[in-house]
């Protein structure tokens, strides 16, 4: 199968997956008892106001009609209007997605920059005291809840030693996010910590596995030094599972973003999703699910492609 055919097939699969996700989520949301009106309008809303809200939002129509209307609007790029924010969902996502992407991408890049060499170093120093120390620290970072870690960082680095602000940049635009880079340090450090722990463990075991392969023995017999072998041979081969893991980590990143956004007052996608779920804001929920589904599908697709770039055997396996 050619690469373009493979990509086309994956693209069609992605569309099918996203379609199924929207059907399931739409059905589940609208099967919730009571509907969203009373929650949105508040305890003081009158019966007429509830009736009017339901009518304006099309909630009185049969479910399948509502779904097809939603789908029709979606195909025209219209995700609807939020019940609670008084804004179009597209606008909300345009404002918030870049913020979450900045957070998650920086967090992932920093985590990988640290985790990959750390994992390889641990493998090279297997059973050495530094390996034990790094392993212990990794387990602590992995098992510490994100909100707890964030609070500790705030107390230490914002309140006790006032090095960094306790709040992430709060502006509406991406430019305002970068206007105060210091404010990004604690949220990124909080998110990166557990990711460093996870990926350094993956990298360590993957490196150890590769170090026991015949090609390493051959390279060694050919006179290659330990460092050269690690850099030139083991590094690339050890990356394969890490790259695969990265693709599947996209939803986890979004999930983690929620806690970080809540703690550091950073209104991004994670928080938008959470608040929508809390306030029965169905259109926003659907919009968020759509974005996360697309991100997950694209993430896994990119991971697959990168895997085949790193490891030609993966590409060969598709033919």
């Amino acid at each position, binding site marked *: 199968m050619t690469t373009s055919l493979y990509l086309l097939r994956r693209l069609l699969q992605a569309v099918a997956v996203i379609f199924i996700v929207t059907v399931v989520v739409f059905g589940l949301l609208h099967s919730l008892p*009571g509907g969203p009106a009373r929650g949105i309008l508040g305890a003081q809303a009158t019966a007429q106001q509830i009736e009017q809200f339901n009518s304006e939002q099309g909630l009185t129509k049969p479910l399948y009609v509502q779904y097809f209307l939603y789908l029709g609007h979606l195909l025209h790029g219209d995700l609807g209007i939020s019940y609670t924010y008084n804004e179009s969902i597209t606008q909300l996502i345009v404002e918030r997605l870049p913020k979450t992407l900045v957070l998650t991408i920086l967090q992932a890049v920093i985590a990988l920059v640290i985790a990959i060499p750390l994992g390889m170093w641990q493998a090279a120093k297997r059973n050495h005291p530094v390996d034990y120390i790094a392993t212990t620290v990794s387990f602590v970072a992995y098992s510490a809840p994100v909100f707890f870690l964030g609070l500790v960082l705030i107390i230490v680095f914002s309140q006790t030693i006032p090095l960094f602000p306790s709040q992430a940049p709060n502006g509406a635009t991406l430019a305002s996010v970068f206007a105060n880079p210091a404010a990004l340090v604690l949220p990124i450090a909080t998110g990166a910590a557990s990711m460093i722990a996870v990926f350094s463990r993956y990298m360590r075991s993957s490196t150890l596995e590769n170090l026991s392969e015949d090609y390493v023995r051959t390279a060694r017999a050919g006179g290659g030094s330990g460092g050269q072998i690690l850099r030139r041979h083991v590094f690339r081969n050890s990356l394969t599972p890490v790259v695969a893991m990265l693709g599947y980590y996209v939803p986890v990143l979004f999930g983690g973003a929620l806690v970080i956004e809540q703690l550091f*007052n950073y209104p991004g996608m994670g928080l938008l999703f959470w608040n929508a779920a809390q306030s029965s804001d169905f259109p926003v929920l659907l919009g968020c699910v759509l974005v996360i589904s697309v991100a997950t599908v694209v993430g896994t697709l990119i991971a697959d492609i990168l895997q085949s770039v790193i490891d030609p055997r993966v590409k060969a396996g598709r033919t």
Partner: protein
Amino acid sequence: MFPVRLARPRQHWALAATSAVAAVALLAGCSASTGSTKSQSGSKDTINYALPANFTPNWILPIGTAAHLNTNNGSIARTLWEPLVAFNGSQGSIAWNKKGSLATAADFAPDGKSVTITLGKRTWSDGKPITSRDVEFWFNLIKANKAQWGNYNEGKAPDNWTTLVATDATHLTITFDRAYNNDWMLANELSLIHPLPQHVWDKTSDSGVVGNDDKTPAGAVKVWNYLNTAAKSLGDYSTNPLWKTISGPYLLSSFSTSGKVVLVANTKYDGGEKAKIKTVNLLPYTSTSAEENAVRSGAVDYGYITATNLDQAKSFTSQGYTVKPWTGWAITYMPYNFNNPTMGAVFKQLYARQAVQMSIDQTSLSKVIFNGTAVPGYGPIPQAQKSDFLSSAQKNNPYPYSTSKAAALLMSHGWTSQSGVMVCTSPGPSSSQCGVGVASGTKFAMSVLSQSGSTVTDNMMSAIQSSLSKAGISFSIKTAPVNSVLSQTPPCTASEAICKWQLSFFGTAGSWYFSAFPTGDSLFMTKGGANFGSYSNKDVDAVIKESTTSSGNTAIQSYSAKLAADLPVIWLPSPDYQISVVKSGLTGFSQDSLADFHPAEWSWAK
């Protein structure tokens, strides 16, 4: 596996580590120079006010739908467009604050069937006079679009206002469909009027010419739609010329869709509440934790903490804050679902409701669970403030806490304790039996759908569960977000699938905030819009009606006494609206128990 000996590894690891550190350092950037952990205001010309956690302002127009007209949006709107009658608690007690009103007098006719309002000599920010035509404009818009208006209740304003006649530029008379209690009319209806700049807003499109479109119902609908559509463009709030013609002490300087609102003093303001602080920053917070962190780092001048953190008050006072509980003009309760197919018949028995109420130790709940930040409530009138509406019957708690008396009361009505839970063993209608509709073998087992996300509420529910069990009443707790609780516990009939709920709780921050005159028409009137449990009592209906139509406070006191005795809901302690932390030096204001904020009253001590 053979050991790998690294030839020159350190440089590479060092390089990688240096890259990582460099990246972090890059992010740290100007941390030393920004000093952003310090208070961002620091100036006497600025104040940073923390909006409630998770609230994003999304509306500034003083007219709109129920989804838009929430308390905090309303507070912002009122700083831009002053109400005709500002009836609030900004002066320490709930009263007409004439300094913040466009009207200077409201003279009721002796028969109580009309009122003549006098406007002060005031001008819009563009220099044009504020006249009775601006009041008429508001009235026409509301009358033609009442179904869309968030404050509309059938039979109330504008339905009960038959005419509004402008006698001259500063006088107008509103005639009612019958005589009303003057205080109620002033506090609950006339206070809803917002004179709007007719000379700028009376058009149907941006390019349209300002005319008298509001004078016909069809035209008024078009104007309403135009204004409401314009108000949906949040991004244009600070630039749209429509929103520049104001009457209030502040002008909108910026309105970020992420929630930050900046108000600057209106230099053209000629009213009695001139802004004393030039710039007001209303700051949004994603969570209470985020807001508390901001307070701790000094970034907020007027913020809040949770009741559970009250024992850390010293850590805030040592940072120059004063802790000021902000009581609400509210009551807190758990509605019974009188139409529940299983427990409805039990809830309809007054003795059963008395037994439940006697099993709630409100004094201990207020002191222990709420850390002293709640006030016991025994009836439908708020008790955190002194008022003339409160009856002595309600004030004196007609059903003091006693689980032994509660159990004895149940047993005297045909209930027997079996395995710690009361079971009806003597069904029948007589006074020593369980009551009409309660079948033999019915267990006194209730369940509540309670608001989630609050440790205080969770603790209160557990405490109530424990005390009810002492009276032999089983109480199970389910939780859901507040919006879900409201959606899942509507007024219903027994045959409806949604009528399975038995008790509902949505009062973590108080269940019901009243207008200044605390009538119960929505809450406890038969078929009232917010009468979730379908409570119905003809005597109560009559007294509620009387409280709004008769003069004086006798009727509302009678209403207070009747509902304290009849227990339409389980009365619970009413928590403070907010536990504020206020920077020392911020003075000159009282916290409005109607839950509004009034930036024009804030000032920094010199």
